[in-house]
């Protein structure tokens, strides 16, 4: 079966005062129907720009190019803005990090949920309200009828994010792109929201692209993982492959950095990646990680080869161990 979303050679360049910032560099991945792909990386690695590029929501100073960008049989790279608009919100929805800014404070929750539905599906106000109440119940909000008349500021952060999820589900999308959906939330709420997302995904058969910096979230929710560094995907594979046997030194370093109760010994030094992320302005040659890499060698100055092993791919001069 062909993939639901197929991205090949996605590049996003931003015009900044200092020149051209290569935010996303030749990124490729595929998402099958119903599966969860986590895009993970640190700030500035291009993961959010990748999400916005998929949605066609890039800022004005950005330019998107792709060899292939096909969603559900529609070529997004060639689609007109009107076509993209029609897809967005209907077949392709997005959940943002900060639900308070993503919801319009001037309208009730009911209005906002119904508007999305009626814009894409038409139908009566009553039908839209019924769907909204049904989905609020699905995302675990009790007394849904009453909540529909409330404004975003009357809800807690966790409830707002549930409303955002309900809004994303209104038109029965086949893919949800979630950009750091739980980063602004408390840890106990985060676990609840992720579980909700996972359950709903199974129930409605949606695919999920989850953008996050949190490897813990990735490990628990992802089917497949793409690790980004300096605008590139440096490693991808199933969650089990990437966490059990990380091949790219960056992925391995990142996993070593996290304290894990029961695994890392309290008080012991944690793994660390020296240095900082390189600037992405101007031309970048060779492996962008080589200045921070313990295994760097002269060959790293030219573009690293991509190794593959049973669907596990990594871009590094070092092959299989």
């Amino acid at each position: 079966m062909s993939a639901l979303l197929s991205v090949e050679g996605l590049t996003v360049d931003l015009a900044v005062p200092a020149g051209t910032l290569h935010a996303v560099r030749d990124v490729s991945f595929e998402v099958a129907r119903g599966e969860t792909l986590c895009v993970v990386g640190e700030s500035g690695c291009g993961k959010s720009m990748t999400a916005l590029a998929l949605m066609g929501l890039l800022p004005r100073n950005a330019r998107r190019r792709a060899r292939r960008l096909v969603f559900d049989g529609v070529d997004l790279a060639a689609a007109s803005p009107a076509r993209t608009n029609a897809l967005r919100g209907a077949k392709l929805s997005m959940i943002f990090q900060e639900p308070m800014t993503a919801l319009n404070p001037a309208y009730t929750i009911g209005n906002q949920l119904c508007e999305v539905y009626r814009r894409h599906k038409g139908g009566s106000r009553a039908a839209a309200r019924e769907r909204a109440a049904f989905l609020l119940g699905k995302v675990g909000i009790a007394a849904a009828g009453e909540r529909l008349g409330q404004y975003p500021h009357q809800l807690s952060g966790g409830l707002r994010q549930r409303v955002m999820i309900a809004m994303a589900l209104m038109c029965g999308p086949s893919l949800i792109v979630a950009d750091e959906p739980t980063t602004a939330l408390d840890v106990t709420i985060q676990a609840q929201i992720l579980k909700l997302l996972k359950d709903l995904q199974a129930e409605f058969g949606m695919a999920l692209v989850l953008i996050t910096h949190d490897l813990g979230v990735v490990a628990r929710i992802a089917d497949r993982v793409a690790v980004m560094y300096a605008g590139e995907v440096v490693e991808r594979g199933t969650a089990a492959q990437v966490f059990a046997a990380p091949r790219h030194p960056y992925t391995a370093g990142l996993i070593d950095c996290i304290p894990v109760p029961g695994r890392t010994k309290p008080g012991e030094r944690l793994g660390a990646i020296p240095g900082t992320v390189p600037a992405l302005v101007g031309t970048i040659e060779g492996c962008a990680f080589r200045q921070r890499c313990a295994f760097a060698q002269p060959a790293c100055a030219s573009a690293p080869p991509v190794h593959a092993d049973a669907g596990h791919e990594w871009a590094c001069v070092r092959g299989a161990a």
Partner: protein
Amino acid sequence: MSALMQVEGVHRAFSVSRGLFARKRTLHAVNGIDLEIEKGEVLGIVGESGCGKSTLARILLGLIPASAGRIALSGTDLRGLDRRVLAARVQPVFQDPYGSLNPRKRIASIVALPLAVHGMGDRTEQRRRAIEMLERVGLPARLADNYPGQLSGGQRQRVAIARALVMRPEIVICDEPTSALDVSVQSQILNLLMDLRQEFGLTYVFISHNLAVVEHIATRVAVMYLGRVVELAPAAEIFARPRHPYTQALLASVLTPEPGKGLPDTHLGLAFPDPLDPPPGCGFNPRCAYARAVCRERVPAFSEDGPAKAACHAYDPTFGKEFA
């Protein structure tokens, strides 16, 4: 045995205005906290947003006064203590390395500020000590004349640490020092904090919402919920056997990078309490799966259970049997 810092029955209330004509309401940000901070320990304080942990940090730093209760530093009440004496012994590291450094001052002068305030040495001496401390926290001396805007998040947090340590304090209050940082930078900062603790014999109060980080660095942990400490225990004990249902939920919510474990079920309800209108009895009862009638009526007191203390009726000898 006398503790380095003693916190007894500390309260802090804020009055919150909700519009021009609405009645002012009182937010009990910190609602009766007793703690002892022992020399050389790392006291972790864990809790979620709105639990009062940052307010507590500011009270310990003397930045805001407690509404009630007493805080003593080596037996001396903070109220009778000169602010500078307190400042020389207790220093902060804040969460946001972008907000905690004055964007209009050079790095060296930011780090030297405590020395300037306390009139320690002349300007060249202050600068020399600031640069020495910058190098100690892993920053090159050539950054001394840069502005904070030219540094990365991790470098800024190192500057904040250098400023906190330049006067050689005894206690450092770290309020979410790594929450705003990337993981790879977080581990660098945690390693640095652990090294510096050894080198300078520091005592840390380490405030975080991240239980995994606290587990790694703390020797003792206090779990806070709605302005109160609900559990207090040695770090190893809290992770091996959490007593309070809230601690259990918090621990279950830690997402470790272990694929295959799936997402935890925290058994928590959706009824997140309004801090302005906390539920009667135990503040956690609306979300607690084990709540009984008594939990909705009485505020639980601390009950000892082995090396741990938990403010939960389930561990109270009088009410404990109701939970069996």
